[in-house]
């Protein structure tokens, strides 16, 4: 892939040298490197350049939290691109564009993209297969919102340009394979993806908090996102999909059409996509027709327990022992994988079915049921959203049961499976549900609820009278006491004398 880019850039570079402009060689350094200013984050920097966050991180050997320091010099172009021809070429392009000098930081963006525009606008016009998604997701990885922001920051004349420019850029990578880059040594499954130039990922059409959800309020502006026509989708599945596409050197196409999770698996088994990334549980049923990659998250089986009921029934730390008794009611959601689990672990308990997750949680909160059973993630995210129920319930785990969430890949694509499995470890895609809860639920919702302001407002509205009276009494009482003490202290010498 990198060879490909080098070859391509070299070609463009020769073109550029024909125009024969070498004035801006001194710019080369600032093209290749960017000095971190105040307020910069890696994703912000990535927005300004035709590179993804991941790429910049790779070129600079940055590790996962991607912390950059003020004044740090970051390589923002591929390290291989050293031939002077390119710089000249860019300089040439720059001259053609009226706008870039207006803002130096946007120069590299415009320059590297412009040749692509010229090269492939016509081609792009012909290939209209997925215009919407390509436009928005074209930069191979991170920022969907980047184009709009760029548009804002660049001077008016250039406004129309970044949008068409940005999309074709990866395209320009795609044609060369056909143009003669040797793909013959790739196995068929990978070759197919490379020739196609995009990775097709299938997903359930709904949302699952933290894994794929709409972020219309822009709570997570820095997170990788995909515009599916309805809105900006973010989540760990989206992040993972971009990472895989990025590593394969192709674009991402996300098809969020599957009516349910099992259907998504069947579609990929029929070859309608390359993989499913959809908070998919690796059940044995599904494993009969798709291959599951190594799970990126393993969640435990969670048991939400009503504190009062638990205390009433007697001390028992172990949730299995606590719930497996004839007088215990256990709430479960109808039609989920947790019914068999409940039957397996609580054979003696009375199982009560509820239509949805919230109803089961409510039942436990109100004490209608002693406990409910679901996966750690579903319960954990519900608790993050409504921390106040934590007063009445507690979360325990059945550690023996591990539920794996991971990508499903068609059995026809064994090399893709290998590739993804290797990536899981190498790129630290494997994570924990706690990490994800912190990342996507951030206590943000909870923090909002329990912020000091909310608490203040609350304590002033609810029964303000007796609170105020108490405060007054205590303040007056304490100040009286202090005055008293001080007066009393003054008497001390007298008392000493009395003694003598």
């Amino acid at each position, binding site marked *: 892939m990198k060879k490909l880019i080098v070859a391509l850039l070299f070609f463009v570079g020769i073109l550029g040298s024909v125009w024969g402009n070498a004035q801006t060689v001194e710019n080369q350094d600032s093209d290749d490197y960017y000095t971190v200013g105040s307020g910069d984050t890696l994703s912000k920097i990535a927005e300004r350049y035709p590179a993804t966050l991941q790429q910049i991180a790779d070129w600079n050997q940055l590790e996962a939290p991607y912390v950059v320091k003020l004044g740090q010099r970051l390589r923002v172009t591929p390290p291989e691109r050293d031939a002077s021809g390119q710089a000249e070429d860019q300089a040439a392009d720059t001259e053609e564009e009226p706008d870039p000098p207006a803002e130096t930081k946007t120069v590299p963006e415009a320059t590297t993209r412009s040749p692509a525009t010229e090269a492939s606008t016509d081609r792009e016009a012909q290939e209209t297969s997925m215009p919407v998604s390509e436009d928005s997701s074209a930069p191979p990885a991170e920022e969907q919102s980047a184009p709009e922001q760029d548009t804002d920051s660049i001077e008016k004349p250039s406004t129309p340009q970044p949008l068409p420019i940005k999309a074709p850029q990866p395209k320009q990578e795609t044609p060369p394979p056909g143009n003669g880059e040797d793909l013959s040594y790739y196995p068929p499954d990978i070759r197919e993806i490379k020739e196609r130039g995009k990775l097709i990922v299938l997903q359930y059409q709904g949302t699952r908090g933290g894994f794929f959800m709409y972020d219309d309020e822009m709570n997570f502006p820095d997170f990788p996102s995909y515009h599916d026509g309805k809105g900006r989708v973010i989540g760990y599945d989206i992040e993972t999909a971009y990472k895989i596409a990025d590593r394969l050197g192709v674009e991402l196409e996300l098809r969020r059409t599957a009516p349910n999770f099992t259907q998504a698996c069947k579609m990929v088994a029929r070859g309608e996509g390359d993989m499913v990334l959809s908070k998919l549980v690796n059940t044995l049923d599904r494993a009969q027709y798709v291959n599951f990659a190594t799970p990126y998250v393993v969640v435990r089986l969670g048991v939400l327990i009503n504190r009062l009921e638990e205390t009433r029934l007697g001390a028992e730390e172990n949730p299995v022992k606590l719930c497996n008794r004839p007088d215990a009611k256990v709430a479960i959601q109808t039609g989920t994988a947790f019914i068999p689990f409940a039957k397996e672990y609580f054979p003696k308990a009375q199982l009560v079915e509820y239509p949805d997750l919230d109803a089961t949680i409510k039942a436990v909160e109100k004490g209608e049921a002693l406990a409910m059973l679901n996966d750690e993630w579903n319960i954990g995210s519900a608790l993050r959203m*409504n921390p106040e129920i934590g007063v009445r319930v507690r979360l325990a785990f059945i550690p023996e049961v591990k539920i794996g969430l991971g990508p499903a890949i068609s059995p026809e694509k064994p090399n893709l499976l290998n590739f993804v499995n290797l990536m899981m470890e190498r790129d630290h895609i494997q994570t924990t549900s706690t990490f994800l809860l912190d990342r996507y639920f951030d206590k943000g919702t909870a923090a909002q609820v*329990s912020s000091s302001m909310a*608490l203040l407002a609350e304590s002033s509205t609810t029964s303000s009278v007796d609170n105020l009276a108490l405060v007054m009494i205590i303040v007056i009482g304490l100040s009286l006491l202090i005055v008293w*003490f001080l007066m009393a202290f003054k008497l001390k010498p007298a008392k000493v004398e009395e003694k003598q």
Partner: protein
Amino acid sequence: MSASSVAVPSQPAAKPAPSKKKHPIIRILSNPWILAISLILGGLTGHYYKDFAVSLIFPGELYLSMFQMSVIPIISTSIIVGLARMLRSGSASHYLGGMIGLFVITVLVGSSLGLVLGLVLEPGHNLGKASEAFIGQALLEENSSSGLDQNSGLQDLFSQLVPANVFEAYSSGKVLGIIFASVLLGAAMGMSRSEVGERFLEVTEGMKEAFGKILGWVVYGLPIGVFFLIAGQVSRLGVEAVLALSKLVLVFYFGCLLLWLFYALIMRAATGFSFSRIFAAVGRPVFVSFSAASAVASVPLAQKSMSALRPPVEVVNFVLPLSVAMNRHSYALLFALTAVFLAQLFGKTLDLYQALFILLTAALVGSASAGRLAVAAPMITYVLVPLDIPASVAMTIFLTIGTILDPMIQSSVVFGSCANTAILGKPSPSNPNEPYNDEDVT
């Protein structure tokens, strides 16, 4: 009032006498206004300059260690000397019976005050969603143990009370064990009439005096120490936690102030001294225990300043430290109040039997609670579990607001102990008390 009218006129005459000897800096440092100013400054610093105040935690604790360095020897020696002298003079049976009766009554006053305040002011009703969210979050983060470890609390208590090795108890600073050992030593000393025993007592008294001297020097640093300690404490206070549980905190503080009033009243009734004189005796130790959030630390100070009320020396020596260690009314109040608070939070109505149960267990368990709230918190299990209220919630609440409750708990313990001492050591016509004699009082 008569006592104050005597004291006030003599004040100007008395003042120059000690001040002539003392260096002006020392005079400034022992000025009570300076103490008040440093308290206020410390509070403001802790609140507005959190980062700076956090860096004051360490010097504050260092000062507290210096303070406490001589506390344990003083407590131990004073119990030994006090009990032995009592036994030798034959007044022991009189004081012991009175002490036990007083301990029981006052701790029951504490727990019933907590119960009544909880039932009347209803701190657990309509807590509000934001407050519940805060508590819920704290509980979820605290994670999950059901807090039902029934036996550990009592076992811990007994293992602390009876040290495996007396010297180990001294070296590890386990106050309960030290007191237990001291009581035994004092009793043994008091029973023996030998001359060697008398000499041992004199040595012990000498040690006590020496440590008292050291403490006297350390006390000069009090304004600075109070500043450090208060700033550190305030900086560690979670404002959100206090707001979320503001009702509980307010009712508890209110209850403790009522307790103080109660103490002042019974002290006045028992001794006949004026309120200002009573506060002169109690003020500084209460002040110190409040800012250091430690009752034990202010025992020697309390012993000295209680001399103003002229209880017999043995009573001050023996009753005061024992009372600080074992007669914890504010804990009884807090536990009873918290039990009612949680019952209200979980929507349970308490019947008469349950209320009575809370009253008695809170008094019992409160007396057995030692140290700071974070250490004593598991004791509340005994109050809550029989009522089917999950104790883990109470423990999490105590951990979150321990920093703000501790000063009040500890200073109330000191105040109560001073009250016990004053009542038991009240001057009677038949027994004209010698004033407690210690030169470095000021």
